[in-house]
């Protein structure tokens, strides 16, 4: 079943290249998203290993489910986006094939039972994403794709160095199966394990957008198509963070948890700090969303650094952030289509120009920022509670100050865009609301899903996250 999930993108990609039909492309990508969701749902209920190299456990099944949901809604949006893109059928098909390969490589990384296999799939995801970022074929898109590919490939190379160091510490390449690593954690040479952890953290931290390795993310969000941006912030960052979580668990089991916690805490706070600085002076709304992703990854890193119940909060936050950020980025894509601009100062009077998009924009902001009744508030509340219980008051005050600064910076920009006078209508025949319901429906459905958690996190989801959290902290 898992292998089908990995072979499907290649087989379906060949079919898509043969027929070059936009409708078929959309059907296949959405079908793949549904298959991902079905398999991740099955794995959540029945975690098991299918081959020695791929397995589903309570942790990675959750990540697979998030990937499936984000991919599904992004592909719904993408169907409408491609119709208006003005790109020829051949380029559209190639773009859709790469989307499938991108999702497939992320699924492969999530399900990998061996560290080197995880690394290889993470590398493949980088390669496929760089093609997708270059979709618009402009010089700025090229610059963004190049920057992303270059920075992440250095990260991937350094992660490999970390894997080699870890192999030296274990003495056997076959020990790099996650289960073997956890089982033999205490036998690993601590020096090589620490060295390996640092290099792997740099490698996967680059892909996860953790500061100070985040510089590719703002440019990528500025240039990538909306669905690709949503997949990057909603899924790829999580996938990379899964690698960090796996390594952090190993460090914990090897009684070196304090070392990995310290580094995660530093990177987490640095991410919040950099975001707080840049979000106040950022001029482009897509860059603002990128800094918001950096902030949230930093927040999750801090949750894992604190440990205990905060790990549960971190995983919950990861799920909520993925869904809300996907909706935010998809809405951002619609705004770009409406105004033909990325500048905050040029996007005013959104409410007058397109009321539905304007409200989706504000709702996205509320959801991402964790303003009640956003479910993100719940994970932040759990975080605060754990910090107080653990007596980490100074760190809590610092985190809250930075989070409030970010909230202020983002809120100001969102309100500028929402209110004000609408600029003179641009000469275009593009009328998204009338023509393309799919430019709105994915976000609306995502909000239904997200805000349904206001009524309380369902017991089933709570159990799954609790199991995943227990698996990490055990």
């Amino acid at each position, binding site marked *: 079943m898992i292998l089908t999930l990995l072979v499907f993108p290649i087989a379906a990609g060949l079919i898509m290249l043969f027929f070059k039909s936009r409708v078929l492309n959309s059907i296949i990508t959405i079908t793949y998203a549904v298959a991902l969701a079905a398999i991740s749902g099955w794995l959540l209920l029945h975690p098991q290993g299918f081959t020695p190299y791929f397995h589903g456990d309570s942790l990675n099944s959750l990540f697979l489910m998030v990937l499936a949901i984000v991919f599904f809604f992004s592909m719904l949006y993408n169907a409408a986006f491609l119709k208006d893109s003005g790109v020829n059928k051949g380029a559209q098909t190639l773009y859709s094939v790469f989307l499938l390969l991108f999702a497939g490589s992320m699924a492969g990384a999530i399900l990998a039972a061996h560290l080197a296999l995880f690394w*290889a799939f993470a590398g493949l995801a980088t390669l496929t994403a760089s093609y997708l970022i270059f979709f618009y074929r402009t010089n700025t898109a*090229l610059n963004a794709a*190049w920057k992303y590919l270059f920075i992440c490939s250095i990260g*991937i*190379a350094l992660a*490999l*160095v970390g894997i*080699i160091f870890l192999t030296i510490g274990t003495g056997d*390449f076959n020990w790099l199966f996650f289960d073997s690593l956890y089982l033999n954690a205490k036998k690993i040479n601590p020096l090589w394990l620490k060295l390996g952890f640092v290099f792997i953290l740099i490698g996967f931290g680059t892909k996860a957008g953790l500061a100070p390795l985040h510089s590719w993310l703002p440019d990528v969000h500025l240039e990538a198509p909306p669905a690709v941006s949503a997949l990057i912030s909603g899924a790829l960052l999580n996938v990379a963070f899964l690698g960090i979580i796996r390594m952090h668990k190993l460090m914990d089991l090897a009684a070196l948890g304090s070392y990995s916690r310290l580094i995660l805490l530093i990177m987490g706070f640095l991410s919040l700090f950099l975001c707080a600085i840049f979000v106040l002076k950022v001029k482009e709304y897509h860059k603002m969303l990128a800094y918001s992703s950096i902030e949230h990854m930093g927040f999750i890193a801090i949750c894992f650094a604190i440990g205990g119940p905060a790990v549960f909060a971190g995983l919950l936050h990861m799920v909520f952030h993925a869904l809300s950020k996907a909706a935010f980025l998809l809405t951002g894509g619609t705004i770009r289509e409406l105004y033909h601009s990325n500048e905050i100062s040029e996007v005013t009077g959104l409410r007058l120009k397109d009321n539905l998009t304007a409200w989706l924009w504000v709702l996205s902001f509320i959801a991402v920022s964790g303003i009640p009744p956003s479910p993100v508030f719940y994970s932040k509340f759990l975080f605060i509670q754990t910090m107080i219980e653990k007596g980490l008051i100074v760190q809590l005050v610092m985190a809250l100050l930075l989070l409030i600064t970010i909230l202020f910076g983002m809120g100001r920009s969102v309100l500028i865009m929402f209110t004000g006078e609408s600029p003179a209508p641009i000469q275009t025949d593009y009328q998204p609301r009338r023509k393309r319901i799919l430019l709105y429906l994915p976000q609306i459905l995502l909000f239904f899903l997200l805000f349904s958690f206001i009524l309380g996190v369902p017991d089933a989801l709570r159990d799954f996250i609790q199991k995943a959290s227990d698996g990490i902290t055990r």
Partner: protein
Amino acid sequence: MTGLIAILFGAVMPFVTAASRIDTLIKCLAFQGMLLFILVLLNAGHASLAGTILLSLETLSLKTIIIPLLLLWIVRKNGINSVKTSANSKYLALLTATLLFAGGFLLSYLVQRSGLKINALYFGISVSTLVLGLFIILTRKEIFTQVMGFLFLENAVFLLLLSVFQDMRVIAALVFPLDLFAAAFLYGLYVTKKVLL
């Protein structure tokens, strides 16, 4: 013999950091590729035949011939001849490279003393080359030189893999994704033409 080749591999790096002509950089890269090919052959004794053939082909055809030739072609197509570096920065780079090269030997000595079952000389030299590859990427501003830095870094990772693993199939499997990145960079350099260079 293998020790001498590994030392030659590391000794290329001070030349690389001080070089101001692009074709010198490319020749250094090809030379390192050839040295890696010889090392693969010399280490083939306790490796599988299939893995050895794969890695020999990889180092000889890809690292020694195809990548350098493609780079030369791109360079000529874009009319790039030299790297912009001042005499002062060149001197500092040379000093850093020499110190790191010496540091590689010190690291080899420390690793050997620790009694680990790895090739200590390969390890020390590969780590010093790796750091120098990063140094080139961080200190040079031109995209082309940064890509060269990545390719040297990739060679260093290859030597690092040789120092740790006996099984050539494992090395081939781990090197393949990095080669894909190298191919993507070459394609990128070709596509970008003068946009980024």
